[in-house]
């Protein structure tokens, strides 16, 4: 399988990465090189094989349902590019 330039633009948008038109052809080449590299996986017989979901199968450990942390709003917003009164600030999304 290989991708065309429209697919490159669509993936970039899904990934929320702005791609300028001039970058599309070489991105397309690079992605197709990777897809060509993984092509041979199609030849493997995977009939009846379970996909791996956990590399070290074990029952998930659960902890007691108690509050162990909190009241650290200051710490949570300290690295925000824009914040106001313990809120993250983003461009207006609702008119």
């Amino acid at each position: 399988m290989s991708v065309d330039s429209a697919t490159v633009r669509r993936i970039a948008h899904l990934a929320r990465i702005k791609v300028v038109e001039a970058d599309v052809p070489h991105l397309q080449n690079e992605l197709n090189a990777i897809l060509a590299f993984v092509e041979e996986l199609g030849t493997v017989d995977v009939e009846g094989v379970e996909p791996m979901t956990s590399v070290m199968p074990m029952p998930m450990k659960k902890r007691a349902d108690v509050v162990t942390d909190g009241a650290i709003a200051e710490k949570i917003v300290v690295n925000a590019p824009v914040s106001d009164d313990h809120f993250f600030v983003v461009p207006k999304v609702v008119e």
Partner: protein
Amino acid sequence: MTGLTELTLARARDGLRQKEFSAVELAHAHIAAIEKARALNAFIIETPEKALAMARQSDARIGKRDAGPLEGIPLGIKDLYCTEGVQTTAGSHILEGFVPPYESTVTANLWRDGAVMLGKLNLDEFAMGSSNETSYFGPVISPWRRRGSNTPLVPGGSSGGSAAAVAARLCLGATATDTGGSIRQPAAFTGTAGIKPTYGRCSRFGIVAFASSLDQAGPIARTVRDAAILLRSMAGHDPKDTTSVDVPVPDFEAAVERGIRGLKIGIPKEYRRDGMPSEIETLWAQGIEWVKAAGAAIADISLPHTRYALPAYYIVAPAEASSNLARYDGVRYGLRVPGKDIADMYERTRAAGFGKEVRRRIMIGTYVLSAGYYDAYYVRAQKIRTLIKRDFETAFSSGIDAILTPATPSAAFGLGEKGSADPVEMYLNDIFTVTVNMAGLPGIAVPAGISTEGLPLGLQVIGRAFDEETLFSVARVIEQSAPRIAPPEKWWA
């Protein structure tokens, strides 16, 4: 006292306890070495004040006979580990200026045991690379050079800063991480020892995530013993990481010298690649002779799905990365580039904040997870992962105790030599290491020889899940049997 930087971690630990020198003296010696070695670009930031403050506390504890297992030992920390109050970038512009208000569990374990932090080490951006050339903060230059040449070489990646700093005697050991070979390949390129423990052995809490089902923390050190000492402190169950496994952490150091008499070492025929340099073949053959001479039996084995591991990895790892890296959106931390609306802000921020390789992997990951391709790519790759793990289980259940392979397909290469036209050329570096991540197993790289050009070469030992002890004992035999590898000449100082 410049001689202090030449000590092994084990020797420095013993010297501190016997008060031959102080932790402050040891820290000063390393701080001075780091200042002289800026040409290597191994550190993103140096923290000399913090190192000295921690060393003074160590001296006080040693004075009170209250020393921890790593008391006063100066370490470098890969800049993928969150360190409270100290910038953590993952080698990316998008996290430049990020100062975590919390500490990763692994580094917290090291400080609990008395270790001293010298600074944060350079790496490939988000640990995506095999040469340390994708770092936003510039490539790391290997302390090694080809005999009679000034060509700058890569230290390997992604833990290139860790490997270079340890090889150049800038720290006694370093933390690293390994998703497809990022501890073992740079260790092999720099003549250092590096272990990727079993998945779940170390907590991933506070380590910037790349591919969560493959990422694992581990040390790079100058000797097998030093790596064993560090891993014991780093490892352990952590309630903050549900994939960390609640099993006892053995005294790895005690296993280093236990010998390998009676062990059965498997030699997988699929690791003999067409076009493999003859010096890698020779190194491997030598390694086989050394373990035989130490009393182990050799058995030819087959791991039939080996060749599919790397392509399957380049589906699974980017898929997980595309999901993990969705959090960098210019809202909660890191870079923000304004846009005409929120979606435009996300897109501009991520285009400006991520480097080329990271953008490429996010896009591949997005593609293989997208509607219509999920089953053909992602689910198929996870099925192949099951087959790869099954290959190893079959070998181990037939009585094999450990598997011996080359660590890398070649010695270190020059800056800019690989991957500029075709990204896959760089990916092939991980051909021998990536299988281990896919199966969650432990693997160690140990220096075993010198190439015809005068560069270090490493062998890899792969073991059963949670049997790092056997790896340490086999690696020690190789380390002991190999001709002594002199440290690189200090051309930078």
